[in-house]
């Protein structure tokens, strides 16, 4: 019984983690940048949901939708401010890594000024109060809702990438920016768009993270970034479809440990990340990536 619970809960967590990580993977694929501020965008999404519910009693699902244009705009602006300077550096990969670390610190500090350092949480009825009974097990309704809400967002992203012209251009830039530019694709525009979409996905995931993570606080960002990185590494860097697999593997491993060796649960994301990086740096679905 505990095994079944852990497995199904792992799948539910996994869908959420896939949404939480997919933006990081998109941005990595197009810009070859590990966006260390990714987790901080998730935290900001949580605060958005918290404020909208506490002030206007708006359901968290609504916040997840509002998060999309807001995150998109924020990502767009950030990209246009930073991008012109990134390309000039001697070691752009490392430079941008450190740069985004600085941005992460700024977001965290501003979030602390704005919302205080205490953990904030919401009661389940901010999303859905009723728990789900399945096969004699009771699953928190908020967990089920977070997982279910992640599916259409991930699906929309998949359709965008594989069924639209902009998506095809995005995949071309992922494969080879120079050649993409040579066939007339505006690489800067695609990059800005991708950065916006990646940020939007993170902010939207934040609306659910406040339940899945049991609350939110400004200092959570680094841990969320690490988890998201573990997820995309498992599923292969730059492979967006792989993120879902990565999320599921991570979610199930996490729930298994939480169920059968709860005091070691903290170790799981880090151990998985290290093992995958050392044993199979290209991820479970990966071909060898360039530059990686």
């Amino acid at each position, binding site marked *: 019984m505990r095994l079944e619970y852990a497995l199904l809960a792992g799948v539910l967590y996994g869908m959420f983690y896939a949404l939480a990580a997919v933006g990081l993977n998109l941005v990595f694929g197009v810009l070859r940048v590990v966006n260390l501020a990714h987790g901080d965008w998730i935290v900001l999404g949580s605060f958005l949901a918290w404020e909208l519910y506490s002030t206007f009693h708006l359901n968290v699902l609504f916040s997840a939708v509002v998060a999309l244009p807001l995150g998109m705009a924020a990502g767009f602006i950030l990209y246009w401010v930073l991008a012109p300077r990134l390309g000039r*550096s001697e070691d752009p990969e*490392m430079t941008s890594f450190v740069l985004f670390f600085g941005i992460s610190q700024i977001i965290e500090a501003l979030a602390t000024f704005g919302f205080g350092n205490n953990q904030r949480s919401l009661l389940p009825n901010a999303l859905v109060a009723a728990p789900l009974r399945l096969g004699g097990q009771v699953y928190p309704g908020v967990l089920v809702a977070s997982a279910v809400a992640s599916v259409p967002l991930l699906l929309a992203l998949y359709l965008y990438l594989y069924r639209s012209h902009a998506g095809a251009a995005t995949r071309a830039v992922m494969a080879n920016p120079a050649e993409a530019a040579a066939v007339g694709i505006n690489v800067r525009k695609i990059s800005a768009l991708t950065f916006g979409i990646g940020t939007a996905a993170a902010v939207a995931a934040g609306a659910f993270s406040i339940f899945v993570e049991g609350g939110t606080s400004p200092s959570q960002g680094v841990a969320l970034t690490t988890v998201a990185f573990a997820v995309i590494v498992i599923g292969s860097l730059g492979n967006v479809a792989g993120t879902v697999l990565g999320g599921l593997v991570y979610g199930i491993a996490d729930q298994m440990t939480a169920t059968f060796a709860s005091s070691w649960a903290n170790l799981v994301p880090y151990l998985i990340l290290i093992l995958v990086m*050392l044993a199979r740096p290209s991820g479970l679905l990966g071909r060898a990536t360039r530059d990686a």
Partner: protein
Amino acid sequence: MPDAVVGVVAVLAFALAPSFYGNELLLLNMALYVVLAQGINVVYGFAGYLPFGYVGFFGAGAYGASLSVRYLHVPAPLAVILGGVAGALTGTVLLPLLRLAGPYFAITSLAAAEAIYAVVANPTLDFVTQGTSGTDLASIYNSAESYAAAVCLVGATVAVVVLLRWGNFGLALRAIRSNYLAALCAGIDVVRARRIAWIVSATIAGLAGAIFAWAIATFYASAVFDLSVSVFAIVFALFGGVGTTAGPIVGAVLLYGLYSAIGITAPSSFELVYGILIVVLVLFVPRGLSGLWHGFLQQFRPTKGQLGGGGGPSTGRLFMASGQPSEARMEGGEEILRVENLSRNFGALRAVDGVSFALARGEILGLVGPNGSGKTTVINLLSGVYQPSGGSVVLGGKNVAHLKCHHLVRMGIARTFQIPQPLASLTAAENVALASRHGRPGPMAIADPIAAVGLASQRDTAAKDLNASQQKRLDLARALATGPDVLLVDEMGAGLSPAELDDLAALLRDLAKQGIALVVVEHLMGFLAQVTDHVVVLDAGQEIYRGSLGDAVKDEQVIKVFLGA
């Protein structure tokens, strides 16, 4: 040396500071951050790895010290040393991480530190580690002695950095950062050099953690594994400027001072300040304070550097054959290299398919073929850049087919690159000195390789400021400096002027007269004809012709692959 002065000043300042300023714990923390920033300097500034999980070594040192006090009842100074050992051991366990590069390394090292923390602070292990309940070190607590130890550690760490900056090992590390492939082919054992820097840096952090534990009567795992320790050390080092001696010291003192002034009471204000600082540093001041300082000094210096060097045209003969009588080292005839059935697959593609040839001392073999015929792959296989899929390479009687580049260089196989690979941030003289130090032991056939390739007036010019033709020549000088028996020359002729080509041909002939065996890959047949008449023609990885260059151009199959059917 000004660097040593910097170290002495830092140690004296920290030693005297308690007489002027009462808050000794603040001074201790500042001294330890100087140490940690220098540790980051060693592993990032010199070896190119940015460990976000650097705090893991600090924590390991703190627990190494406290556990050895608790279970081995050692006196405090020995506990500090054992803390350093704990840091070194942790570094040894994490050596596989060095296979990763850039951001992947940075994040994975962070995960490693968090994993160590999750073990040390695990409730089920608390009876051993006291990670959550707090480690009581009142029995050895001594603020004056622990502070003295911290001051000593500052001195020792600065000494290590000075050695790294000015020693041979430091030059090797700079070469690796500058151009990995070129460093490898100059004979540097890249993996070993990076491992040493990593372990040294881990030991430094372990010692710092141990001293911190000693200076604090009670500490918790959450404090000594706090990610902000890594972050501070990294930001301090970047702010001051990595790769220098004074930079990380100045960075740590200024920023930790700022943190003490505003950060302890309002940590998020400080977080905002250093977040902005990082962004400004990365975007506008990538070399930190030391970069600004050198830029400032530069304005007052006469532009001496630009007179001697630069990419301008050189005068006189470009490639100079040595003036010695050619018979001096003539050892022609003795076989030195035998290649049999050499093959290399890339997936389904058989890039080199059973190539065989033998080479005697003083012999020059031309390797010819259309694009994609496998010429450069042969060079990469012979020089150890690629590993062969099959076949043997026998050098002086020993099969060396599966040795790595730096081993082969030490055994006497050197190469140049089709696209020049300068160690960009090093001067021409340093490029060559490095190669002669790491190359084959024993005397060089060419006493002054830089002069031999016509770069005598560019000795002190940074390799990145040389023009393309000069960089090609520097490649050759570096290869000669390793003292090769076999020299692999990969399309050096492309892009050289006719006069330069004539000089290069004379130099290559002269090298052969001195007993060096040469493999020359070339498209320029006129140039090749000046160098040798003995060629092997490749097509699709296989030999299709062997014999004189003169007859090759009459051979039907050769004509077919070059001109089409």
